């Protein structure tokens, strides 16, 4: 029960309360760029959710087995190279470069795979898939996971793959929610008489700001939920 409650808290926090776009302001470029039409925005949201899950799986695997201080694989290999050494190898300096590297190549791989085996899906994703490579929301999810794996002082607090994937998938869903709402507003905006200097990116950024303020209303809900479910 407590395990499920924890997963649920992570999910709600990632999707709504600490929405990647509207709370942390990452992934703004596709949020502004691809939010012209609702169906396109929804497609982008789905594609991001898809890629973010794959990237989270890979980055968790890297951080857990290789990247964190005293990671099992690194330590094992180092013991083979230098028997008797007691040094704790910490490869967390590599996190950023490895995450970017892993995201870029996994997107490439997924693209080739989809193209071969799921042509309709590949056509539906179209240009979004390669574009997502440079989406900072994905790097942010990886770094957030890394924080909970490499940064945890208590070994019992280290996130497993389940929590990492929950964060990533619901972070992606949060992104999809945000960009779809944004696209809905922008479609309505087409019929409005926007002052000339604000047309285009200007009014979009203003709308994004107001939307973010609305989402600020969720702040603290996670604490309340925690008390409610776990009874702490």
């Amino acid at each position: 029960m407590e395990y499920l409650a924890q997963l649920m808290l992570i999910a709600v926090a990632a999707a709504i309360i600490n929405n990647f776009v509207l709370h942390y302001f990452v992934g703004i470029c596709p949020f502004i760029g691809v939010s012209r039409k609702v169906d396109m925005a929804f497609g982008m949201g789905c594609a991001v959710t898809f890629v973010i899950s794959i990237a989270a799986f890979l980055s968790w695997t890297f951080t857990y087995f290789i990247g964190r201080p005293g990671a099992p694989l690194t330590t094992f290999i180092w013991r083979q190279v230098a028997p008797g050494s007691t040094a704790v190898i910490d490869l967390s300096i590599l996190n950023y470069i490895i995450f970017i590297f892993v995201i870029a190549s996994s997107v490439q791989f997924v693209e080739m795979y989809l193209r071969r085996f799921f042509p309709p899906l590949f056509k539906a994703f179209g240009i979004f898939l390669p574009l997502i490579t440079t989406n900072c929301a994905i790097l942010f999810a990886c770094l957030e996971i890394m924080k909970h794996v490499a940064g945890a002082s208590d070994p019992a607090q280290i996130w497993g793959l389940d929590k990492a994937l929950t964060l990533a998938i619901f972070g992606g869903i949060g992104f999809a929610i945000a960009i779809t709402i944004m696209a809905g507003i922008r479609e309505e905006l087409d019929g409005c008489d926007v002052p000339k200097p604000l047309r285009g990116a200007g009014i979009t950024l203003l709308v994004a700001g107001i939307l973010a303020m609305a989402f600020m209303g969720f702040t603290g809900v996670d604490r309340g939920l925690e008390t409610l479910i776990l009874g702490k």
Partner: protein
Amino acid sequence: MLTTTTVLTAAGTMLVLGLAMCAVLGWASRAFHVAVDPRVEAASAALPGANCGGCGYVGCNEYAEAVVKGADVSLCPVGGASVAAALAEIMGIEVKETAPRRPVVHCAANHSQRLGRHEYKGEQTCAAANLVAGVQGCVYGCLGLGDCVRACEYDAIHIVDGLATVDYVKCIGCSACARVCPRNIITMIPFKADQVLVVKCSNRDMGKDVTNVCKVGCIGCRSCTRLMGEVFNFDRNLPSINYDAYTASLDMSKVLEKCPMASLVWVGKPTPKHLEQTAGEVLPERIEADFKTTADQAEWRG
């Protein structure tokens, strides 16, 4: 010691990961290889790549795919005959004689020639004014509020004395103006020569009703159809030119003479003769947008 260790392991990790990814991606690119028709690539290389959508497809690539599947090769309005020929060569087919399609505004009345105009203070777009009754007497003709001007990305259509006028030197034939016109009076017409004859009226009312609202509108007298029935079609009080039958070499002088309202007008690029005729005239100065920055004006003192 610790630093050296970290640096060495970091470098080693990067190297191993890099090699592993290279191997995986290299393998994937072969294992998941999809045979793309080389003609698609050749066709998209031959297209202009402007992605304007003038052909009716979403972009140049989509059109290239459609061409390979058997679509008409002469749909690209920007590339015109040369692109059509290149596409035909890729596809190994003969290209029909193609003419670039250019927009024609089927209205000839400027402000003073349109009757029954009332002051309109609403939103200054044709789309909005078209919804309001009584802006002008003619419910078919140009409203002159410039939706087409705003749609044009090539500065090739302007409102001159209340009438949308195409600049055929700048026009590339993307048909954006034709799509945006709320009264549908702009149509794309194949220009078989630099100049073609067009019917500059869209009014389908009876003659008396037309003269009540316009000084130059077509009254539907059928003179043109009687004289050259093979070129002119007549439908609901308005003649139209059948551009399949029309050729540049046809002698149209008799029809032009006979038309009482001068609704038949030559449009197109000016010929050297026209330019010579108007060479002496002083044009009103047009103010061009000035995109220079201060850096452009600064004197070079190096």
